């Protein structure tokens, strides 16, 4: 019943806040600390959605999105990226790589949930 969402962010506080918000709204969450970490987990685990930061060490958000879209297990899942208002160019690059949508930091929990409901079938 609960949809499974993977989050990828190197910022522990954002990760914590996102996971808390998701769990409050009945979603199950897997957290990962950077792109490489997320991609490794996604190779073996089917999830319903990915929420990823763009700036991350090891493998950044764009690399992660490309990796997911060229994989098989999670190829078609919705991917939401967390951007900041100064990242317009990066946002377009991520969209071209296959991101579904975005949410601009800072955001409120209810904004995050609204975006998720926009792209994730209930």
């Amino acid at each position, binding site marked *: 019943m609960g949809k499974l969402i993977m989050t990828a962010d190197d910022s522990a506080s954002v990760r914590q806040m996102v996971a808390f918000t998701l769990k409050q709204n009945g979603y199950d969450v897997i957290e990962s600390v950077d792109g490489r970490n997320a991609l490794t987990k996604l190779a073996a685990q089917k999830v319903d959605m990915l929420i990823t930061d763009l700036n991350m060490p090891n493998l950044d958000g764009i690399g992660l999105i490309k990796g997911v879209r060229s994989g098989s297990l999670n190829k078609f899942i919705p991917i939401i990226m967390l951007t*900041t208002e100064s990242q317009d160019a990066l946002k377009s690059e991520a969209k071209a790589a296959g991101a579904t949508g975005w949410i*601009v930091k800072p955001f409120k929990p209810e904004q995050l949930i609204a975006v998720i409901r926009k*792209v994730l079938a209930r």
Partner: protein
Amino acid sequence: MVDQHIATYREEAGELLAELESSLLDLEESPDNSDLINRVFRVMHTIKGSGAMFGFDEIAAFTHEVETVFDLVRNGKMAVTKQLLDLTLKSRDHITALLSAGHGEVNRHEGDDIVAGLRQLVPQAETTMQKMDEPTAKVPPKVDSADAEQKTWRIRFRPNRELLLNGNNPVLLLNELRALGTCHVVAQFDNVPRLDTMVGEHCYLYWDIILTSSLGEEAIRDVFIFVEDDCEIKIELVDSSSLATDDQSYKKLGEILVERGDLLPVEVQKILNQQKRFGEMLVDQGVVTPEKVQSALIEQQHVKTVRQERAAPAPDAAASIRVPAERLDQLVNLVGEMVTVQAHLTQAANSLRDPTFINISEEVERLTNELRDTTLTIRMLPIGSTFSKFKRLVRDLSQELGKDIEMETFGADTELDKTVIEKMNDPLVHIIRNSIDHGIEMPEVRTAAGKPSIGKVQLGAEHFGDSVLITIRDDGAGLDRDAIRAKAVDNGLIAANAELSDSEIFAQIFTPGFSMAAKVTNVSGRGVGMDVVKRGIEGLRGSIAIDSLKGKGTTITLKIPLTLAIIESLLVKIGDSHFVLPLASVEECVELSRADVEAAHGRNLVKVRGNLTPYISLRELFDIGGSPPDIEQIVIVSVHGQSIGFVVDFVVGEHQTVIKPLGRFYQDVQGISGATIMGDGSVALILDLSVLAQTAELAEHNQL
């Protein structure tokens, strides 16, 4: 919880600042190391982004300046200088101060000086202003007042073929539009290629949407925010309530198609000269696809309706009148008689073969049908009024039991016959009580199981053919398949080694006296329960189904016919008697020859589409004299998801059955749910299929 997020942020920022310091010192040694530059940039970015999330606005604003400079360095537009490193180290200290200090205790000037210093370092050409506020997906604003301006929009949404590859789901977008107001959606297929050239992952469909909403164009654009860059989205205003027009009609079909760019004005003239129905002609000529015409017609209809509603005087006291329910019942009865008489008339007209007479009878038939439909809708009420009653029930019960339960409803405007709604009340109360008492766990149990502590009960109604589906879903503990099985074996209801499907096991809870509750609570557990529910629902000619997953929840679906007065049915004949079977349950009719019977060696089984299907001979069951024809007919019906056949002499055909209750003496007859009067005045009995199937099953058991 927010405090905990803030504490985590402080800790995280502290670590990042330590990392920053060492990176800056390393950078001093090797100023061209791009890894180090990237790391500095990332640290600044994270401190800024996360800081803004948790209310550290001053840190976010200050760090933004440093980040901007390092973005330039990263892109090779600036070099790493001693000056830059000094300023950045100072920034680090300033951020540390901001982080640990309360408001107002920090030396602002120091921050301003650093920012000014950083700005001086930036080459002139790069000092463009950064825009700060960018629209992010918004929580849709609530539609508040009814008198807000209602506008009708024509939207064409032509997605990029590769929309699905990016994880987008057009259905969700269409649903979002539907939530904005009154909405009609027409799918356009003309881009769908032949199967052999089709790429399964591509989206070839596009959609025409007509939407009436009090929200503006912006709200509609917001729906498409993630896809507007690579999809074609055309939004045009076609009607508005502020438009001073008394005209309740709307544009002609041709005008709409031309406006949409689907058709050239020249073509319109050419076609109009031929004088046929315009839409048909367009399609005949292959100028536009049928879907395009349909979409334009829907726009026409939609706007007309909206305008008519607007022109209609605001609903005041005179717009509705109260009528005693008995008078309505009487009206329905009279209409029922009328349907019967009309059937007789049609029969008579057809046998006389007089064209004038046939004409009149057809006209009467049309009027009667309209009268029947109108009359039946008068008794229809939205089920929503009952729903609100249940909200109260959920609230009271959950308080009593100390559980946190939220109730969600959907389809409250689904209409059902008034009598049906009344009779639904008790069964629904029972099911919802069960969900709350047995289904939803105590909050601490839920939290331990990793579920949200607030339990959810969903109650909804939706149309399904000529029935309404009522769903009661909870996200509670679910039914324990094994426990029910064990209990049923204990009670001697099923054999210990019986092989049963989940639904068959769940069905055990409908047995009289069956209760899973370990102790009797105020709310439930006395073992009088689901069997009463089942009887109530079957009394309405409905059916009940259970689906459950242990630990995840239970869904109970009730299928209820729209009305109790008149049903579509199949008329059959045995000997000289007519019988009626509700058409909704009928699956198909097949022949039963003598050879088939002999081949089955005395067992009442016949092979239909490869499946062995049991059958009952109604002639035997009702002890009707005479001999059957050489080839009999089997009507295959579905009872509780299982196929069973009823053998009859002839299948006459579809029949509009006006249901009459049986007289007092016959009311307890098993297997007959009512009667109807035929066109020629004779009586046909309405078969109660589920009871008949049960009787047959019992008889089979006793024989074995």
